[in-house]
């Protein structure tokens, strides 16, 4: 059976060049980068090269990059670390209703410890406006955390305008750029970003590695205490193979950004067009133009997302409904509810995300498959016959 992977926003395969880069660090250059002997110093040199490489892809200085175990750790660290280190300034955070759970659940944990959190509304496209942020700012606002690109609906925020509002009020600006990094050229200074979370496994690098960009001068406490690694800010023996893989993936992403975006955009538009032309009662979610180059998020009325995924899976097609992390949950996606979709429509969502290995045939095959499975599920649905029968 044909295998069509359309879940690149959940995770990506590791590129061959990246695996190749990692291999020597398992068996030969395996030293602990904190050791002063040759094995350690060799690892240390590679580590600092990797840091410089990753820094370059963000137009940042190497000493602003701190390696972590992934996007979730970076998000937790940014929020908990900044709030803990800036208590004298205040205890108010502003974020949005459409953040990833790594942000939302961290905010909830902070609330339990006394922080005040404003969860901003978004418009029907998932956009936050600078005006709304302006209105939410308070004198005790320490941090504004707004994601760069939403993982479900693909909407991209006006980061520069938002960070300006935060700074005008003396607050720090964090962005969860896990979905944006590798899909947009991010210049941390030009965008006014103080802290930024990124993750390796979304850009064809290994899982379990990521980074937090911390602008010089930002006050932040540690999340993981211990050894003096990462300039004493993030303890733990450096995951050198993982970091080398991450850096290689970042380098490739940065070098090929234009062609990557062009490839994704073309297939994304083709996929969406195919769906809209072949299936009725479909709603396209997210912003029409300010969006992730590979993200298609649609709701098929009268059917439920999981059933759709399973049916597609039976045809070899891998997609997702809501974000991967919340599957198994009974509630429809918090993001789709936040953009104002009624529950029954939100339940029928499908996210298909294009990546570097996606082909035109994959897209065509998927459109054909969707036509068939949506129809099959609708024929079973008590909601669809009401519509057809003109009942209700």
């Amino acid at each position, binding site marked *: 059976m044909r295998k069509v992977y359309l879940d690149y926003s959940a995770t990506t395969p590791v590129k061959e060049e990246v695996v190749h880069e990692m291999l020597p660090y398992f068996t030969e250059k395996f030293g602990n980068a904190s050791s002063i002997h040759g094995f350690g110093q060799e690892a240390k040199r590679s580590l600092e090269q990797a840091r410089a490489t990753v820094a370059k892809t963000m137009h940042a200085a190497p000493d602003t990059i701190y390696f972590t175990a992934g996007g979730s750790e970076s998000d937790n660290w940014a929020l908990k670390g900044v709030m803990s280190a800036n208590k004298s300034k205040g205890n108010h955070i502003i974020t949005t209703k459409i953040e990833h759970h790594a942000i939302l659940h961290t905010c909830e944990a902070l609330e339990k410890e006394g922080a005040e959190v404003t969860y901003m509304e978004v418009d029907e496209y998932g956009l936050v406006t600078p005006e709304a942020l302006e209105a939410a700012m308070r004198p005790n606002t320490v941090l504004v955390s707004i994601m760069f690109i939403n993982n479900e609906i693909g909407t991209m925020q006006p980061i520069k305008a938002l960070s300006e509002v935060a700074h005008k009020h003396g607050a720090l600006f964090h962005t969860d750029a896990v979905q944006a990094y590798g899909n947009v050229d991010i210049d941390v200074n030009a965008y006014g970003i103080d802290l930024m979370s990124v993750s390796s496994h979304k850009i064809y690098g290994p899982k379990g590695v990521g980074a937090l960009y911390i602008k010089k001068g930002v006050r932040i406490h540690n999340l993981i205490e211990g050894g003096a690694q990462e300039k004493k800010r993030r303890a733990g023996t450096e995951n050198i193979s993982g970091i080398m893989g991450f850096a290689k993936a970042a380098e490739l992403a940065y070098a090929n950004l234009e062609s990557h975006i062009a490839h994704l955009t073309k297939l994304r538009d083709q996929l969406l067009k195919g769906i809209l032309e072949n299936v009725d009662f479909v709603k396209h979610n997210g912003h029409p133009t300010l969006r992730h180059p590979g993200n298609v998020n649609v709701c098929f009325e009268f*059917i*439920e*997302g999981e059933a759709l995924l*399973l049916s597609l899976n039976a045809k070899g097609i891998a997609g997702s409904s809501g974000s991967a992390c919340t599957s*198994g949950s009974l509630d429809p996606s918090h993001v789709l509810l936040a953009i104002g979709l009624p529950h029954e429509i939100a339940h029928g969502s499908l996210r298909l995300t294009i990546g570097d290995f996606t082909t035109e045939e994959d897209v065509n095959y998927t459109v054909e498959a969707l036509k068939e499975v949506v129809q099959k599920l609708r024929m079973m649905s*008590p*909601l*669809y*016959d009401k519509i057809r029968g003109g009942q209700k």
Partner: protein
Amino acid sequence: MYTEIVMDHFMNPRNVGEIENADGIGEVGNVKCGDIMRIYIKVEDEKIIDIKFKTFGCGSAIAASSVATEIIMGLSIEEALKVTNKQVVDALGGLPPVKIHCSVLAEQALKAAIYDYATKNGKTYAGLEGFDPHDDHDHHDVVEIEF
């Protein structure tokens, strides 16, 4: 995640559809929760001689509907009222904890259909005692516990 039996019932659901002039129709669940199950029954001599379903919901909701109709087909109403969600789960070879509520829903949908039949025909069944077809949030307690 799902057993092969679940996947088989999901991919090839038995008794899907409608029964024209059904003797009883039960619908439970709601769109907010993401699952609605509708069961149609045809009754003769207090026996369920035909049963069909339509379901809006996840894979296990569809599989549970399907396997439930298989279990019930041909049973007497009294027997059908004794069918529990556990039997549905067992017949499916198990369901993940978060999906147990789907089996509850199937049990409820059947009861709602029999309730409809009973109401239309002025009958009462011991097995329906305490059953309220509009109380379709019941299953959520189950979920919360199982989480």
